[in-house]
C-alpha cells in the first residue's frame, strides 16, 4: 500500500527560522547570517566592523564553530554580548540552535546581531536561521571557480563580499571576471569588494549595514 506524505524535510527548521525572524522583527534587531568557506575572513570582518561601528551601533555576535571558542575569544575585547555555539562536529548552524541562543540576549537592546556560521560552502545554504539577510564572504584566495562549484551558497546570498582583494593579483584573480561569474549565478545579489583587514575598504559594507538597520527601525515604527 502506498501512503502519500509530500512533506518538505526542511519544514521543521524552516518553521523555527520563521519564528526567529518574527521575534527579531518584534524586537527591531537586524540579523545577519555570515557564511563562507573556512578562513575566508568572517571573524576578521566582524572585528573590523566592530572597530568602526561598535560605539554607535549596539551589536551582538553568535559564533558558530565546530569545537573551539577561538573566534569568540578574538571578540571578547569589544565587550559586546557574545554567544558561542559549538556544533560538536555539525557542519552548519540551524534555526533551533539560534532559537535557544537568543534567549540569552536582550534583543530589544540591540541594533544588529551577527551570526557567524560554521565555515562551509555547502550545508549552511539550506538552513534558514531566521536572519534578515545572508552575507557570503568569498576570498580571492579560494580561486575564481567557487561560484560555479557552490551554486546553492552563491544563490542564497543577499550580499557577496569579495574579500582579500589586496591578494587578487598575487592569486592571478581577475576581479571583473569573478563579479561576472557571481552575477551569472545570482543576478540579484549585491556585490562589494573589500579587504577585511583594511577598514578603508569597508565603506560600502558599513553603508549597507546602516541602511538595513534604519529600514528595520522604520518598519518597527510603522507597526507601532
Amino acid at each position, binding site marked *: 500500500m502506498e*501512503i*502519500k506524505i509530500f512533506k518538505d524535510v526542511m519544514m521543521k527548521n524552516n518553521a523555527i527560522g520563521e519564528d526567529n525572524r518574527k521575534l527579531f522583527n518584534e524586537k527591531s534587531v537586524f540579523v545577519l547570517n555570515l557564511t563562507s568557506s573556512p578562513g575566508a575572513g568572517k571573524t576578521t570582518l566582524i572585528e573590523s566592523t566592530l572597530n568602526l561601528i561598535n560605539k554607535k551601533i549596539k551589536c551582538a555576535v553568535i559564533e558558530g564553530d565546530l569545537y573551539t571558542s577561538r573566534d569568540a575569544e578574538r571578540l571578547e575585547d569589544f565587550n559586546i554580548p557574545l554567544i558561542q555555539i559549538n556544533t560538536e562536529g555539525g557542519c552548519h548552524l540551524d534555526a533551533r540552535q539560534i532559537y535557544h541562543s537568543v534567549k540569552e540576549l536582550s534583543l530589544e537592546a540591540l541594533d544588529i546581531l551577527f551570526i557567524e556560521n560554521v565555515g562551509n560552502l555547502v550545508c549552511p545554504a539550506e538552513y534558514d536561521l531566521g536572519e534578515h539577510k545572508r552575507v557570503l564572504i568569498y576570498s580571492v584566495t579560494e580561486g575564481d571557480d567557487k561560484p560555479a562549484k557552490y551554486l546553492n551558497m552563491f544563490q542564497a546570498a543577499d550580499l557577496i563580499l569579495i574579500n582579500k582583494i589586496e591578494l587578487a593579483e598575487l592569486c592571478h584573480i581577475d576581479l571583473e571576471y569573478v563579479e561576472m561569474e557571481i552575477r551569472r549565478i545570482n543576478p540579484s545579489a549585491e556585490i562589494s569588494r573589500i579587504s577585511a583587514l583594511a577598514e578603508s575598504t569597508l565603506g560600502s559594507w558599513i553603508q549597507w549595514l546602516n541602511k538595513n538597520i534604519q529600514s528595520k527601525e522604520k518598519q518597527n515604527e510603522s507597526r507601532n
Partner: protein
Amino acid sequence: MKEFFLHESSLAKDVMEIILETIASDITLSVKTVNSIQFSQSYPPIVVAESFEFYFEEMIKGTVLEGAELIFRESEKHGFFIETIDVD
C-alpha cells in the same frame, strides 16, 4: 577523534521522525514494514544519496523502516521532500 557530522545526519533523523509520526498519527494504519521511501530533491542536490543512506540505515535499526529501499528522483521544486512510502 570526534566525528564530523554532515547535514545528511540531521536530515536523516528528521526524515525518520516525519515518517514515524505520519504512521503513528493514522490509527487506521497498521504498518508492519516500510518497503520503500520515495524522495525528490532539486538540483544541485541538498543531500548526497549515499551519505544520507549511510546515516539513515543506522538510525532506523529496530524500527518498521529497517530495510526500506530509498528511491531518489530529481524535481524542479527547490528542496528535499518525502513523497510517498510503500508499506505492508
